[in-house]
């Protein structure tokens, strides 16, 4: 029983309300995946819950800036990582850490090649470790490294998506991944020793 003379404006409002509800439903369906990434980006469960709530509060507020049909999960995680970076800057960001850029990738490879035998020994040690150790080692990585490792390995994002989410070049994603994983291995080997 819809009014045939419904003014365009009313129809627009109704349409917008439907779009909004659909957006909210789709966003909520992704909550477990968003939480999983959050859980490994911050130290405690409470922080992860706070971060996810802040993310959804902001997402629901700015839902109009999401383009339907694009990657909603990446959109949500972009909000989440930005909020997390802001928090990090406010609280415990170490002043001495400089982000690694593209050139470091080549250097890292040179070092890895030189240390071939040592690397194999490290790997033997790490293979005996449990998943719990991985959680701990992951949380010990610096923000820059952890963000990319978590987005690619846990969030299952492509380098391109991770680059967009973090607003850094793809080459930087690759170099941080590489360095982050090396730190992770070193940390695990240290733990096992």
């Amino acid at each position, binding site marked *: 029983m819809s009014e045939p003379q419904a003014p365009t404006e009313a129809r627009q409002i109704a349409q917008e309300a439907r779009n909004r509800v659909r957006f*909210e439903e789709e966003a*909520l369906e992704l*909550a*477990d995946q968003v*939480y*999983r*990434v959050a*859980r*490994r980006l911050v130290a405690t*469960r409470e922080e992860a*819950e706070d971060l*996810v*709530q802040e993310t*959804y*509060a902001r997402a*629901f*507020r700015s839902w109009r800036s999401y383009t339907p049909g694009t990657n909603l999960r990446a959109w949500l995680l972009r909000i989440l990582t930005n909020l997390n970076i802001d928090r990090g800057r406010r609280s415990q960001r170490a002043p001495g850490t400089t982000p690694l850029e593209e050139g470091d*990738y080549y250097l890292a*490879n*040179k070092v*890895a*090649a030189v240390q*071939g035998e040592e*690397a*194999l020994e490290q*790997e033997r040690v*790490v*293979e005996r*470790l449990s*998943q*719990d150790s*991985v*959680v701990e080692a*992951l949380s010990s990585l610096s923000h820059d490294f952890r963000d990319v*490792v*978590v987005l*690619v*390995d*846990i969030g299952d994002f*492509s*380098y391109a998506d991770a680059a967009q989410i973090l607003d850094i070049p793809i080459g930087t994603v*690759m170099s941080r*991944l*590489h360095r982050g*994983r090396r730190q*992770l*291995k070193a940390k695990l080997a240290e733990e096992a020793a």
Partner: protein
Amino acid sequence: MSGHGDCEKCEQLLQGYLDRQLTDAEVREAERHLDGCAYCRRRYRFEETLRRYVRLSAEERLPPGLMERLAALRSLET
């Protein structure tokens, strides 16, 4: 020297290979190298295990009540 040039290159390829970021041609190149190089094969297996551990470390369900709290945020902003 001693054929490490290839392995250095493969180190770069390996990361992209494991993260499924390579082009078809690069995948073939990486696989060809892996076929012929025991050192890189071992590294590949290890790197794969590490990624699996990282992934498994995050297998965690939503804490109780969080979904409800998120859903409640919807009407807050109207």
